[in-house]
């Protein structure tokens, strides 16, 4: 989230799209109801289903799954053409005035540089027109035909209300009604918040859907505002933290990236990562990349990391692909090129698409290690569970270890919520039986490995032998020790302008203390400040909100630097006064920035200095034009899901290359696993229910009682056509398999008119499996397609095709 849960209460308009927050985050949703109660906010719910959020919404619309870019792209065009955007904000705080270099074009669904064979773009032209000093040229009048604003305007001019109706299946009158409501937040004293979750991410164009939402918020002047922002509600309790710490194939901690194989030279790697300002006088905080990197390497390798060996740069593994995500790994498993896997609290058999393929992959491993508090499906993939997992154990040669871990109640440490708050928790009781904490198990594995390498030698032992391990109990690194390690320490006295600011051995105060000369160690730069000489900042419990604006700076600790609303400089006008006096967050006092939040900005930089508010970006501006950051192009474009219920992309009916996401990664092994709408006529989408949490709560009796059995949701009209009554059993098939479930027949799903066709949508909750106390069932992911978003490889769980039959 750019903002926070409590901040939602400051909104005038709450747009729930690509998420169902009442269902998935009921307690966070309280703040939506508070917005309605406190400021008569309106809640707008746009979703394929009339869902629990819709139940308390003021306005709602059904939308065909996977078409949100069309709706939002049309909104962008509407806002521009009807002059209902925050012009002052757009001029001062965005890249609208930047000129884009010659050669960048968009034609019939594709941007310049498409390589059909590789399904990739050459992005050379996707950039700004730079002057001699390397700064972007600008036209402050926004009139230049190659300025971002005009290019954007042209790009979305195709997204007429008629086109939106054809793609989304939303009647024009409804589209216009919603656009008019959303446009109201262009006023400086009105803000809109966007609440989204996996309903946007889990598409082959997921990242671009989110970007379109962000562009709308920039146009309306809602970024940085209390009650504004683009808010990823996120799924799991610490998925924010795991991402911050970089447990993804291509990341180091704090969103630094691992080197590509071609980056054979340390200096070249750093120079590529260091982002120099694109406009004069801007912060461009990534220019300090080397400080973050060197400090991380010092945390990992201590004295072994020296300037002479480039801080052990070559000890890091290097990438030959953009990502080695779970889909990639599972695909390799099925090819027989993988030996082992460690699943730490991750039930991949249930959670990943095309269960048959995941099962095949796991069956080809030599070993599988499960670390989990619960006896889940992945651990028992080899076991015959009747029709729900019909395998022959004698044919599966994988050795499977199941190691019991503690759960949250039995372990200390911090987790990071979607508001970026690191909240510390305390162990209440010991784990059951012989279960151990994850730290103890990881340490047990690593220390044994280290011992074997000491005794036997082996492949490239240096990083294993030199990994820092300065824990009081080496067999069980304490959470407090690890937290201090990622916060960082001075390895020598640290000076600033001739004054010693940190003594050798002291904990760092924040990432401003970091140095690139090896004199600081810091495991995760964005978490620097979490555990300082003042103590454990994550365990603070002062819930006071002195400005009554929903900002509790004394509660826990938020990254970065305890800031609660990102880009909060943009909550004030260029002259430093709040856009809305009743929603003042920070403002210029005449000497410094002050207010309810920690300024996300140089604290003493006067408004006249014209330092722009988005300090991580190279030009300090919010970007409508994404340059080369995303795979599909600088402006989001609507493409159909890989399995679409219509025969072409209505925007580009003649160009088959622009039917689906042109850079979607489809493995050769999976080409035959996609169905067509002739065979599988209904658009399906999967989701969570409020009574359950993924596959965990089928092991939880209380939750099993209140939602006991697998069901699918079918609209009354479709059910009528198929002769299905509520409570009857149905079989849902996709090209990849079938599941059986009880039919919930509902008015909440309706057929949509899409480009002259009637499209029925079928809703499939993800819960229930073949273990636990709830009724046993087929895993929903038996049905889902093995394809991911073009940038993140998040599987397209939200849009695929099925058929339904009565059993």
């Amino acid at each position, binding site marked *: 989230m750019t903002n926070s849960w*409590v901040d939602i209460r400051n909104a005038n308009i709450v747009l729930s799209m690509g998420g169902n927050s009442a269902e998935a985050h009921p307690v966070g949703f309280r703040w939506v109801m508070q917005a309605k109660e406190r400021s008569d906010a309106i809640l707008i719910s746009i979703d394929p289903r009339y869902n629990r959020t819709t139940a308390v919404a003021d306005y709602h619309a059904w939308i065909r799954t996977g078409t949100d870019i069309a709706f939002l792209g049309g909104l962008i065009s509407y806002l521009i053409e009807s002059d209902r955007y925050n012009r002052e904000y757009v001029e001062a705080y965005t890249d609208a005035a930047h000129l884009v270099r010659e050669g960048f074009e968009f034609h019939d669904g594709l941007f310049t540089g498409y390589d059909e064979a590789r399904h990739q773009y050459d992005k050379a032209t996707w950039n700004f027109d730079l002057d001699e000093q390397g700064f972007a040229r600008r036209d402050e009048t926004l009139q230049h035909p190659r300025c971002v604003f005009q290019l954007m305007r042209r790009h979305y001019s195709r997204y007429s209300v008629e086109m939106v109706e054809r793609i989304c299946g939303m009647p024009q009158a409804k589209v216009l009604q919603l656009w008019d409501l959303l446009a109201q937040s262009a006023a400086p004293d009105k803000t809109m918040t966007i609440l989204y979750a996996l309903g946007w991410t889990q598409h082959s164009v997921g990242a671009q859907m989110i970007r379109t939402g962000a562009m709308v918020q920039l146009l309306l002047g809602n970024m940085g505002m209390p009650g504004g922002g683009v808010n990823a509600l996120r799924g799991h*309790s610490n998925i924010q933290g795991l991402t911050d710490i970089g447990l993804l194939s291509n990341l180091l*901690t704090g969103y630094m990236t*691992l080197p590509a194989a071609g980056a054979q030279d340390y200096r070249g790697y750093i120079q590529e990562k260091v982002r120099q300002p694109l406009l004069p006088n801007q912060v461009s905080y990534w220019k300090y990349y080397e400080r973050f990197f060197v400090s991380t390497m010092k945390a990992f390798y201590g004295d072994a990391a020296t300037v002479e060996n480039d801080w052990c740069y070559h000890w890091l593994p290097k990438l030959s692909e953009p990502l*080695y995500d779970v889909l990639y790994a599972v695909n390799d498993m099925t090819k027989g090129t993988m030996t082992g896997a460690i699943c730490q609290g991750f039930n*991949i058999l249930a959670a990943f698409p095309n269960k048959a393929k995941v099962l095949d992959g796991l069956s080809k491993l030599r070993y599988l290690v499960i670390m989990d508090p619960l006896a889940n499906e992945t651990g028992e993939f080899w076991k015959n569970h009747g029709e729900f997992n019909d395998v022959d154990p004698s044919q599966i040669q994988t050795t499977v270890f199941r190691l019991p871990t503690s759960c949250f109640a039995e372990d200390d440490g911090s987790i990071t919520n979607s508001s970026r708050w690191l909240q510390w928790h305390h162990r209440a009781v010991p784990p059951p039986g012989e279960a151990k904490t994850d730290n103890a198990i990881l340490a047990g594995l690593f220390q044994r490995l280290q011992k074997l390498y000491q005794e036997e030698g082996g492949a490239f032992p240096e990083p294993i032998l030199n990994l820092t391990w300065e824990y009081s109990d080496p067999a069980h690194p304490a959470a407090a020790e690890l937290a201090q390690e990622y916060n960082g320490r001075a390895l020598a006295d640290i000076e600033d302008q001739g004054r010693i600011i940190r003594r050798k051995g002291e904990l760092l105060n924040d990432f401003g203390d970091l140095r690139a000369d090896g004199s600081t160690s810091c495991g995760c730069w964005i978490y620097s400040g979490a555990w300082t000489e003042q103590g454990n900042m994550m365990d603070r419990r002062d819930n006071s909100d002195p400005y009554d604006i929903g900002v509790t700076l004394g509660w826990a600790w938020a990254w970065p630097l305890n800031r609660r609303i990102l880009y909060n400089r943009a909550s004030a006008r260029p002259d430093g006064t709040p856009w809305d006096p009743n929603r003042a967050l920070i403002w210029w006092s005449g000497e410094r920035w002050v207010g309810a939040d920690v300024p996300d900005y140089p604290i003493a930089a006067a408004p006249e200095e014209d330092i722009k508010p988005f300090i991580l970006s190279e030009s300090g501006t919010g970007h409508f034009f994404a340059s080369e950051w995303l795979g599909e192009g600088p402006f989001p474009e609507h493409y159909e899901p890989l399995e679409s219920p219509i025969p072409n992309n209505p925007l580009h009916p003649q160009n088959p290359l622009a039917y689906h996401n042109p850079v979607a990664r489809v493995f050769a092994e999976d080409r035959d696993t996609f169905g067509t709408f002739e065979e599988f006529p209904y658009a399906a989408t999967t989701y969570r229910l409020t009574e359950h949490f993924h596959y965990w709560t089928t092991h939880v009796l209380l939750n099993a009682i209140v939602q006991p059995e697998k069901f699918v949701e079918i609209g009354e009209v479709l059910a009528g056509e198929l002769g299905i009554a509520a409570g009857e059993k149905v079989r849902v098939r996709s090209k990849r398999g079938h599941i059986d479930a009880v039919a919930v027949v509902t008015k909440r799903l309706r057929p949509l008119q899409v480009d002259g066709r009637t499209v029925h949508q079928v809703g499939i909750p993800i819960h229930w499996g073949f273990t636990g106390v709830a009724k046993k069932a087929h895993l929903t992911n038996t049905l889902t397609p093995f394809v991911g978003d073009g940038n993140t490889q998040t599987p397209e769980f939200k849009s695929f095709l099925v058929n339904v039959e009565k059993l």
Partner: protein
Amino acid sequence: MSVRVSRRQFLKFGAAGLGASSMAMMGFAPDQALASVRHFKLSGAKVSRNICTYCSVGCGMLLYARGDGAINSHDHIFHVEGDPDHPVSRGSLCPRGAGVLDFIRSDSRVRYPQVREPGTDEWKRISWDDALERIVRMMKDDRDRNFETHDEEGHLVNRWMTTAMVAASACTNETAYLTQKITRALGILKLDNQARV
């Protein structure tokens, strides 16, 4: 009247209703015909603060345990409710959080290390030492056999591509950091988490 009536006798007798009421009217009633509220179950409980393990709202929880932490006492959690001080949740919990007691105490909790040998259809209990020694041996054999120091184009890449690690969304930042350190030191690139699901 000094006849002492057991509950069951009284119950049977009174089943017709009319009669029982008349009995009571006459001043005859079992000696416990008074109100009694349930014993207040939180009396004497030990409270710990925690953060919910399910979604990313991060609600505050109070875990109520029996036992005082004494060396001979095996404490157990018997009730969970919301932490009213928490700025987001203010004491509330959703149906997952409100039911988390049955997660902590689920019959599905794994209680000791187990192994399933190739081709068999059962779990066997093993010791921690056996489990870790065997896992580490398989990991090292695989790493030593398949470690890539250079790619096909001769780039120094130092990576181990044949074992994957997927990490838990509910583990702490401290565990995540330890995981990051260890996996990169081993050269693992096939590292992922649940951000996508």
